[in-house]
């Protein structure tokens, strides 16, 4: 029988015909892939290549001839002349892409009134010089009078290499930042994770009162820019601080301030992760521990901690990443203490040294990428743990323990509310510490640096556009990549691109945008300096978390819906509109509020991208603080806070209403 089978003609191989739905879906995926390539991959590539491009004056390529009335001299190069007069050392000749060098520098006795004539030529055509604004890149001899000759500058010529990195690591002021950043991040991570674990433990394992209130308070820091706690700390512990004495002479400007502020703004992020990890623990394990007469202490170390370990690790890496990539806080309270993210800003905005800015960005990318990688790995493990069927733990009253928990949570809550209250107080008084009468003067933003009330309305616009466009792009992208059949390469490429933004610090993304979009050769150059580029940048910056939210919601839907719709000859668009979107509406609203709040508070990516017409509230806080208008900065920060609170309330109201009208089916 086997022989027979061997000789029978083989059954034809089937190449499945792709359906119209699949082709449309892949089209969508490719469009969003292209979007992510343009808004993420290409700018990053531009930044990387920038970090390797070096600029120097190539003196060997310029030759002079001089005629002081006694005929033309033999041609001699600028390099020979430099050797003769010992003017520039090699390191003086290293410059940036905008470097200029006046040719008169090579003639110590140059006078523009002398009748001397000069000739200049380039040996090869790969350099250029400027005569006034006229660019010359040929290899002809050009003759100038001394009066014209003083208007000539040599331009730097580019090369690629590791020189920028060599400079970086041989400049102690720069590479010291690595150590500082790592130190601050480690310290903040340990403190935040410990504090958040205690808080989550109290919420999960005690029967104390006011749990709902504590949960609300703990989320406050998400609603404000990371630099706001910095301002509050200045008021509390600054040179004229309210309770400055508590620091015993130490300065708040520096590591102490950065760490306290970092703990404040990373606390809710750690809390969310650890709460989830504790919530999935199995009560049966605790029953077993009790039955085995294990002490509370022993149970804690053998059941609670191992159960929450992935949550703790994940929280630690998330906090680490947030601190090391944060820019606003160290900018406000860091003083002379240099951190990587601030270095990028200083190099680019302060010194206009874009190449060095790119180098610092690359350095900052490494710990951020590492933290991201470990976090992803750990998250996967946690999911596996979640799928086990466990019985949720229900805490029993225990008076003393509950009282300790209440006291602890109250302390943390006072810390959070306290910093916000200080900001509000600072915003409302006339002139700390001399005139403590209340006034709204500080809200008169028009008279301050930072863009006035326009920057507030710009921020609202940015928030709304980001929420609207971002939600549509993210949800449609997630739907297509989850539901399309086949096309594995395209799908994995998309998934990779969607995960990438989480690993890219905002400062790095913003700088990358300068390199990519500010290039005159780029057809997209027109959006540079507009609100559009900031919307795009913000959507991309916060893409990953939104994408994961959408994917989680989509995975909870029956995976046969598409098969049923296909069997009923209905295009997927109809299923998407009639079923997928209505069912996922709560998650879709969550994505939009997440994007809105982050667009309102973000500073890092947009700091490089705003123009005088598109200043933002969060950037205004920074700039007013920079200019010494700290009270107005606090006032603007509080405006952001109240706006986000308002947005949250609207979100909650709309969600409830929608759930009631469109999700009547959920009740069962």
């Amino acid at each position, binding site marked *: 029988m086997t022989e027979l089978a061997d000789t029978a003609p083989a059954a034809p191989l089937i190449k499945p015909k792709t359906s119209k739905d699949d082709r449309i879906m892949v089209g969508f995926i490719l469009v969003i892939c292209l979007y992510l390539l343009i808004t993420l991959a290409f700018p990053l590539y531009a930044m990387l290549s920038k970090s390797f491009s070096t600029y120097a004056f190539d003196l060997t390529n310029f030759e002079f001839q001089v005629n002081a009335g006694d005929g033309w001299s033999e041609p001699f190069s600028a390099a020979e002349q430099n050797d003769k007069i010992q003017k520039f050392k090699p390191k003086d000749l290293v410059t940036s892409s905008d470097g200029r060098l006046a040719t008169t520098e090579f003639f110590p006795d140059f006078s523009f009134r002398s009748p001397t004539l000069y000739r200049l030529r380039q040996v090869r055509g790969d350099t250029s010089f400027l005569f006034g604004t006229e660019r010359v890149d040929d290899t002809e001899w050009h003759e100038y009078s001394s009066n014209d000759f003083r208007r000539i500058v040599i331009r730097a010529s580019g090369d690629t290499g590791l020189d920028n990195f060599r400079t970086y690591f041989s400049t102690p002021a720069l590479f010291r930042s690595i150590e500082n950043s790592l130190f601050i991040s480690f310290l903040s991570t340990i403190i935040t994770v410990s504090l958040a674990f205690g808080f989550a433990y109290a919420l999960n394992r005690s029967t104390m009162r006011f749990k709902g209130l504590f949960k609300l308070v703990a989320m406050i820091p998400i609603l404000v820019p990371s630099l706001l706690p910095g301002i509050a700390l200045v008021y509390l512990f600054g040179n004229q601080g309210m309770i400055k004495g508590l620091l015993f002479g130490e300065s708040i400007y520096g590591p102490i301030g950065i760490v306290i502020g970092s703990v404040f703004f990373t606390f809710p992020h750690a809390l969310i992760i650890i709460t989830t990890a504790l919530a999935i623990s199995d009560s049966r394990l605790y029953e077993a521990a009790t039955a085995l007469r294990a002490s509370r202490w022993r149970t804690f170390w053998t059941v609670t901690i191992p159960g929450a370990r992935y949550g703790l690790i994940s929280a630690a890496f998330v906090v680490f990443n947030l601190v090391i990539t944060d820019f606003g806080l160290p900018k406000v309270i860091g003083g002379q203490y240099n951190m990587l993210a601030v270095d990028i800003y200083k190099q680019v905005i302060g010194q206009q040294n874009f190449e060095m800015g790119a180098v610092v960005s690359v350095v900052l990318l490494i710990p951020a990428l590492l933290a991201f990688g470990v976090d992803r790995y750990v998250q996967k493990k946690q999911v596996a743990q979640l799928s086990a069927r466990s019985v949720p733990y229900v805490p029993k009253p225990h008076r003393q323990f509950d009282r300790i928990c209440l006291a602890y949570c109250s302390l943390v809550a006072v810390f959070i509310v306290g910093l916000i209250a200080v900001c509000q107080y600072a915003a409302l008084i006339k002139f700390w510490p001399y005139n403590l009468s209340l006034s709204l003067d500080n809200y008169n933003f028009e008279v301050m640096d930072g863009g006035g009330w326009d920057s507030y309305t710009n921020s609202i616009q940015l928030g709304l556009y980001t929420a609207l466009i971002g939600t549509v792009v993210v949800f449609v992208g997630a739907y297509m990549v989850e539901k399309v059949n086949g096309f594995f390469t395209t799908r994995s490429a998309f998934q990779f691109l969607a995960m990438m933004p989480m690993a890219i610090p905002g400062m790095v993304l913003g700088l990358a945008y300068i390199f990519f979009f500010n290039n005159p050769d780029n057809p997209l150059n027109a959006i540079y300096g507009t609100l559009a580029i900031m919307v795009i940048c913000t959507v991309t910056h916060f893409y990953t978390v939104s994408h994961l939210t959408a994917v989680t919601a989509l995975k909870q839907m029956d995976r046969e819906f598409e098969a049923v719709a296909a*069997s009923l000859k209905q295009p997927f668009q109809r299923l998407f509109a009639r079923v997928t979107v209505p069912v996922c509406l709560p998650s879709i609203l969550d994505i939009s509020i997440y994007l809105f709040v982050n667009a309102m508070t973000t500073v890092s990516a947009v700091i490089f991208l705003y123009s005088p017409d598109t200043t933002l509230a969060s950037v205004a806080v920074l700039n007013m603080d920079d200019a010494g208008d700290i009270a107005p900065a606090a006032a603007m920060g509080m405006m952001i806070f109240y706006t986000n609170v308002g947005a949250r309330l609207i979100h909650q109201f709309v969600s409830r209403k929608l759930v009631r009208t469109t999700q009547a089916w959920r009740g069962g």
Partner: protein
Amino acid sequence: MTVQNKGEPGSAKPYLQIDRLTKKFGNFVALDSVSLEVYEGEFICFLGPSGCGKTTFLRAIAGLDIQTSGTVMQDGADISALPPAERDFGIVFQSYALFPNLTAERNIAFGLENQKVGKSAIDKRVNELLELVGLPDQGPKYPAQLSGGQQQRIALARALATSPGLLLLDEPLSALDAKVRSHLRHEMKALQRRLGVTTVMVTHDQEEALTMADRIVVMNHGVIEQVGTPTQIYREPDTLFVADFIGAMNQVSGRVNSDDRITIGELSFKSRTHGLASDAPVVAAIRPEDIVPRDPRDESEAENSLEVEIDDMEFLGSFWRVSLKSSALGEASLMADLSINATRTLAAEVGSTIRVALPADRLWVFPPAGSL
């Protein structure tokens, strides 16, 4: 193994022709060159243990997971490579996949809308279908407000709404409790017969297959073991796997003795031998209800009869299942189903000795498992 279509109704024409279908997932062969013909109006069940390839087979027919090689013809047209939307079928999944945010009637109407059908015509059709599945008043309810059985019937109505030529059912009853399941079994079968729609159902429940199917396709390890009517499958299993998988079956090892005899232990039995060589090892199989107790007063030496000792008795309501041993058979023990009457006449009890016969036409002989 060549597939024999034993029970096809002579007059009907093949509606579905499946030729040497193979489906590979990486190196794993989920379906291995499977061929089958399904006749118009037939109710076919794919039956087998989990992982046997039955769901893969169904999804290949639907175009949801298209086969690696082999062809599928539906109503004379080659649909092998077509995506699901370009095929003609309705499908009910184990989860029902009802759209949770649409009412029962909107679920049923989903496939009718967007098809140039007027609104009143749609309403009429929806009411007709609700009537058909016996839920005329449940239209305005959401799926979450319906019981499991009701949800199943709404899913069926939705699948039938567009009057597809082929109805595919992927374990449609397995999410229901036993009582609802047996009730719906009859209802679905009656409905299918009334509509005359060609139906393929996947199930791992042999009772379901035996009661509902016109023909059963027994599958194992990605190949078809046997195709036949429920009685054929039960009474005349082609392979040891089928014999073992469907119903209860005694299995005893033995050897071929001659053309029409086999040896088990020290005893020789008259039996079919399917042309197996003399002395070839075989497995002899007989169903418990086919073991016939002999009247102790009947002294005649009947064929294939032997003395056995009752080792254990289990009361199963309408009959006794007794475990029988005989030193002549060696280690093997036999299960026999004895009627209440028979046990009374035989005065059977644990430890007593009775005489039973293994009728030659009820005794099946197969090559041992794994020897193919």
